[in-house]
């Protein structure tokens, strides 16, 4: 029952390419949506459950991407090892960064991550010897999964969607674990959580580290999928988009975050036809969602559907008294 949504999601993901074979939009945009799902689901653990905002999440995404790109192109590391190194680096950095800040109550983390994101972006642009500067790094080798080299849009769709499903499954389990309950408690009332014996600074740090790991993981996949990384993919705009996905889908809901990621990815694709008016329509839609569905698309729409359902039942003449 708890995993019903997960299976539905998995089935949809698996059926889409079969229903629309050789369809560029499904496979390529789908893969892009899948990466965003990993990022948003991870960020939701921090925003929705620990009640903290990261405005520099693109930095961890970029860290994973650059770790994979640099280690494989310049040092010839196997791709999985580079991926692991990226995860470790992002996790350690997130921990060292959050530990002192999260001792403080309030939204100091948001401010600090904003600065962090900008600093990491500046390093990507300036450390040309390592990162290739604004031109980026090309020629990232394909992802090598124990001898199988991932190539072609359809294979990438499969790998990224499998990773996205793994992220959703991990998130669902984390939320339902003692740590997840502790996080929800921190979000509800920090004092009350402390009175349960929750080390709130530690719980928030853990959430931050886990969300950074999700982002770095997505980053590694992204670097291999694109075979190219450049600073543009990891700037402040991207961080803000990630926050938007989580809020758009609905805070504190794993499927909400996933839906937000998919919706925003599709929206950006759909709005390309409007060219100059893209940002205008984008902004207007977001405002409309926030005004009319303040709990987010997923939560808001499921509730609306439930209300509609019960209204239909009520309007029908009752058969039994």
């Amino acid at each position: 029952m708890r995993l019903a949504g997960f299976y539905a999601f998995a089935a949809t993901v698996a059926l889409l390419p079969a229903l629309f074979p050789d369809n560029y939009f499904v496979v390529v945009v789908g893969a892009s949506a899948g990466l965003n799902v990993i990022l948003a689901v991870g960020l939701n653990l921090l925003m929705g459950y620990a009640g903290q905002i990261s405005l520099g999440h693109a930095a961890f995404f970029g860290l994973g991407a650059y770790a994979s790109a640099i280690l494989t192109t310049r040092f010839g590391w196997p791709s999985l090892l580079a991926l692991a190194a990226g995860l470790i680096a992002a996790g350690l950095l997130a921990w060292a960064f959050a530990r002192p800040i999260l001792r403080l109550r309030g939204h100091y983390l948001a401010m600090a991550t904003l600065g962090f994101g900008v600093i990491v972006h500046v390093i990507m642009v300036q450390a040309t010897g390592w990162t290739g500067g604004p031109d980026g790094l090309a020629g990232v080798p394909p992802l090598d999964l124990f001898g199988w080299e991932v190539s072609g849009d359809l294979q990438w769709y499969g790998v990224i969607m499998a990773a996205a499903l793994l992220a959703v499954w991990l998130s669902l389990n984390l939320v339902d674990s003692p740590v997840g309950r502790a996080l929800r408690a921190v979000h509800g009332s920090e004092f009350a959580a402390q009175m349960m014996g929750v080390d709130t600074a530690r719980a928030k740090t853990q959430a931050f580290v886990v969300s950074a790991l999700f982002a770095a993981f997505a980053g590694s996949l992204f670097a291999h999928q694109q075979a190219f990384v450049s600073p543009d993919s990891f700037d402040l705009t991207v961080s803000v988009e990630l926050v938007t996905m989580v809020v758009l889908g609905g805070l504190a809901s794993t499927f909400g975050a996933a839906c937000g990621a998919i919706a925003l990815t599709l929206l950006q694709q759909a709005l390309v036809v409007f060219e100059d008016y893209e940002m205008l329509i984008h902004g207007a839609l977001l405002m409309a969602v926030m005004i009319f569905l303040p709990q987010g698309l997923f939560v808001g729409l499921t509730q609306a559907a439930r209300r509609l359902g019960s209204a239909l039942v009520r309007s029908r003449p009752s058969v039994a008294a």
Partner: protein
Amino acid sequence: MPSDRAGGCPSAAATGHSLLDVMGLSGHYGPVRAIHQIDLRVGAGELVAIVGGNGAGKTTLLHTLSGLHPAHAGQIRFDGRDITRWLPHRIVAAGICQVLEGRQVFAPLSVEDNLRLGGYRQHRDRGWLREERERVYTLFPILAERRRQLAGTLSGGQQQMLAIGRALLGRPRLLLLDEPSMGLAPLLVEEIFRVIVELNQRGVTILLVEQNARAALAIAGRGYILETGRIAKTAPAAELLADDDVRRAYLGY
């Protein structure tokens, strides 16, 4: 980490040895000095009440004891150990559990999940947790009926029961109760206080902070009167109930 585990339930027999010793404790509430030079003692197995009006410093005192507010001077000793500068989660692990003023249940979580969170520190001891959860449900049968319901949808009295039950799952050796009667109908106050007495009889040491002086002193063994952040008087509860000054100021007759 494992040494953080609180010992089992204290023996029901109230021994003379003191569990909590507070000496010369002062603390601030924001910029205001809210408690001055508090001396306080709670013996193992006792039920002690601290009564006082609004703004007397009752909540600040409890928050300082459980580490939510820093102490500016003085010392807090729990079971012989100096816990004055400990962080809250360590104090909870040592065995002091507080039921916060205004319940503060986790509204979006179910009754059951709230209780599970109460046992956050004891999560390795699954068997004990399950038994204790059932004991809480026996203590408050209404919670058993609503175990799947979201805590935010409970009535005030039920939330208070949940808050107390949640604290019990932390395996308290000393239970701090902050205004459990707040905003409750007289009948519910009676029910809550009956449970407090029952818990104490089972051996839980309790420090009860209350504005409802009459109800608190009626069940407590000893009492402290807190006035503008200082201990104005301390005596066995029965004596305080009979004291003319106390009657005029807090009991209203």
